[in-house]
């Protein structure tokens, strides 16, 4: 009872503090109306330009692509007519083969480049590093989640064009450094060199790993480790997440200032082992190529 009253008192105190800056709303009968209108206006304007219009634009583009596509696409259709059902099955098989063709073509295109490339195959749940078309490391994807935008893209048949060429890395964020560089000043003489000699320690690969890779054509790949993060790791994750959110804000504002609509991101979230995530992040160059299979 006492505790309840105590909590109630705290709540009342908090509410009174919360109400205080808004007391002006009781002093004029028009104030609440102006308050609602002027808070809703910027909110709606921002919501429309940052969320609704880009979404509308993307969905319309997908519809246009589906109208011109000769593919029956990956959408699931059922028919009670057996002949039609068979035709639909064949069309869907054709779509599957086309996606594999697009994936292979992207890999072959990547093999012409000297740099290390990334290959994400969501169908087989594997992610691999390729050098000149040779699989040098294949890692299992433990779990993944993809944006709902892909459903619309696949249904329209536009996904084939989108996937048939490799993606290029534009920017990355990570909770670990790309290269764990240690700076060492040259010793003045042999005595100082002997004093500064120490046993090499195991590499700093024990940090929790979260990374985001932004590719062209609005593709964003988030990679995180399967292992539960430490407290320090959680802090790093928070810092890394904040950095990414600031980037989103900057990107949206820049787009609006330049007079065009911000683009919607198609994202993929992957969960892989920590050592795999470290190896992938350290291996890929700044303009890495990616082949993707949905």
């Amino acid at each position: 009872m006492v505790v309840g009253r105590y909590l109630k008192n705290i709540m009342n105190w908090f509410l009174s503090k919360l109400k205080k800056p808004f007391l002006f709303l009781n002093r004029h009968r028009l104030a609440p109306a102006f308050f609602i209108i002027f808070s809703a206006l910027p909110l709606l304007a921002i919501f429309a330009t940052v969320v609704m219009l880009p979404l509308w634009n993307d969905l319309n583009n997908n519809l246009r692509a589906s109208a011109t596509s000769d593919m029956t696409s990956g959408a699931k259709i059922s028919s009670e007519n057996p002949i039609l059902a068979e035709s639909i099955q064949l069309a869907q098989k054709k779509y599957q083969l086309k996606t594999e063709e697009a994936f292979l073509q992207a890999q072959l295109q990547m093999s012409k480049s000297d740099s290390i490339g990334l290959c994400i195959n969501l169908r087989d749940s594997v992610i691999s590093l390729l050098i000149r078309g040779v699989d040098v490391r294949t890692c299992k994807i433990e779990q993944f989640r993809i944006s709902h935008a892909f459903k619309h893209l696949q249904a329209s048949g536009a996904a084939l064009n989108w996937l048939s060429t490799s993606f290029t890395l534009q920017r990355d964020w990570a909770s670990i450094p790309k290269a764990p560089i240690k700076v060492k000043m040259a010793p003045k003489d042999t005595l100082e060199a002997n004093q500064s000699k120490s046993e090499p320690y195991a590499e700093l690969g024990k940090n929790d790993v979260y990374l985001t890779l932004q590719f062209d054509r609005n593709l964003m790949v988030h990679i995180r480790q399967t292992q539960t993060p430490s407290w320090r790791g959680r802090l790093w994750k928070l810092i890394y997440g904040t950095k990414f959110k600031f980037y989103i804000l900057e990107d949206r504002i820049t787009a609006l200032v330049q007079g065009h609509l911000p683009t919607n991101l198609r994202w993929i979230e992957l969960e892989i082992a920590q050592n795999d995530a470290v190896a992938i992040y350290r291996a890929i160059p700044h303009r890495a190529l990616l082949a993707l299979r949905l």
Partner: protein
Amino acid sequence: MNQYYFKNRRQEPTETAGASRRSLRPVIQAIFTGLGIGLLAGLLITIWSPTISDWGYALYPVPKVNADTSAINSRALQKDLQRLEKRLAMLRQLKRQLTPREPYLIINTSENLITLKAGDKILHQGICSTGSYTLLKTADESEQWIFRTPRGRFRIQSKIQNPVWRMPDWAFIEEGRPVPPPYANERYEPGVLGDYALALGDGYLIHGTLYQRYLGLPVTHGCIRLADRELEIVYKNMQVGSKVFIY
């Protein structure tokens, strides 16, 4: 009387303006507070826009295929499928051909591991040491070296038995010793690179080491150090021109 009248006339309008300003103050406060809250909420919407957009995609129904399904010609489709299968077989073959059938070496610099393979078959796996990522700077910072193993595809340029190490400038600077002339005798140190060395170009070697206890750690100046047993296996299997993949 007149004085009193004028005094009052002058004061009256001022008081009315003040009163109306006072009465409008809550409205002005409402406008600015509303704008502030609206903009703040807009900022949050912008930050979370990828997630909100995704809800939009989830809520919007996936369009039914608008292609006229009744017009699908089964026979034409089957022909298309056959053509596609052929093309795919060719592409798969091209992809397979990219993997060398002769022995090749894969070096993992983040975990310091080597894998000797031929095609898809693993011939040998073991530990190695790769670049330490140390940036060595001279006292006046006029010169600097970074000790990292390069990544990408390389070929074995030459194979050497009983290699002799020609110490570069950084080796002297790192030990606090004076740098000798380029071809001075003290630059040559036999026995420190093990029994064999395989050159990758640009001065990078795959070689042995005296410091076996450091194997598995990133401690080198960019070369790849192997244990004696691993070095022998690699030396015997790899030929001049064999491929080395480093990531």
